């Protein structure tokens, strides 16, 4: 599935009702009706879009996309969720670190390493997640 096909598919999922080719052109911001028709045909061949008697297109089934998770009609990059999870964990680890310092308790190097790994994981997942989200936002 190329970028335009992906955008059309996501648009149909987002509106949640049948749409004609002109609505799709406006919704996805494509200037050529031929491009829309060609990509809709591709989606029909894949069996994910149906055409009704009025010539409108509707989603037949939601398909899974690698790296994304469906949340209602929204496609969310998994990496952003992983990043949020690690940020939640990092808040607790940072609080524990602060408590140990205030209480003058020794901080084991393994604990410091754990906190650094959590912080790096959160940052890397966030970066990757936003790159995927940017791709999705274009759609």
């Amino acid at each position: 599935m190329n970028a335009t096909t992906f955008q059309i598919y996501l648009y149909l999922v987002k509106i949640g009702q049948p749409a004609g080719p002109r609505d799709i052109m406006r919704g996805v911001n494509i200037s050529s009706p031929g491009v829309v028709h060609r990509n809709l045909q591709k989606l029909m061949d894949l069996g994910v879009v149906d055409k009704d008697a009025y010539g409108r297109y509707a989603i037949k089934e939601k398909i899974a996309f690698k790296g994304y998770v469906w949340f209602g009609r929204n496609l969310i990059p998994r990496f952003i969720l992983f990043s949020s999870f690690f940020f939640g964990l990092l808040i607790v680890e940072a609080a524990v670190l602060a408590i140990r310092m205030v209480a003058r308790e020794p901080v084991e190097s393994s604990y410091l390493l754990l906190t650094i790994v959590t912080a790096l994981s959160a940052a890397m997942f966030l970066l990757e997640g936003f790159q995927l989200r940017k791709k999705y936002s274009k759609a």
Partner: protein
Amino acid sequence: MLNQKFVGLICLALVIGFLTGLVSFYNEFNVFQSYPFEVDVVYAYFKVFNVSSGVAGLQLGSIYGPFNRPLVAYVIVLNLTNPTDKAVRIRDLTIALGETGTQTGQGGVSLTNTVIRYERDFSDWSYDYWWQPNSSKLIAVSATGQPPFNELGIPVLNQQKGYFYVALDCVTENKAYAKGFMLKQVNLNMASENEFFYNVAFKENENFYFSNDAITIDVS
């Protein structure tokens, strides 16, 4: 709509991560709990040394004036009791002896005419500074020093009366705090002209010596 759901899901993931961390590091937050720890001075020995004024080095007075500030060598034995059901590690110890002692509003103590002030940080983990639940141990500390601040410390010993102040900070096995505190008036006995002692621990002919850890003592 998209943003609301998107932000909602991110918050959910954040909360799940936070709760996972909270469950994993639950013990670390026990630092906000505090347990009692009992401390009592059961023995103290003081010896006052006068240093020859003809010898270069240590001055009998101080930079503030020709005060009488000889050296005081001392050994103090404390009975430390852990009344909790948690193992407790001692951490910071402060001992002082002064002429009068009063508790201040902020939980501190004000001593006048201090004879000695001893502070020790037990953060050296090489020794076993743990007290098992519901257990008592005697520890001894010793040092030599000049009475701090002024010349009025030594007369306190000669009066054979003073206030002992002991404060002890500890941590429990589950990383909570335990605190010991004592402020009491004691009467000292005079062993000789320059020797004073206080004893409610040892019988006649009973002696103690330091264990290998240089803190706990063995009684013979």
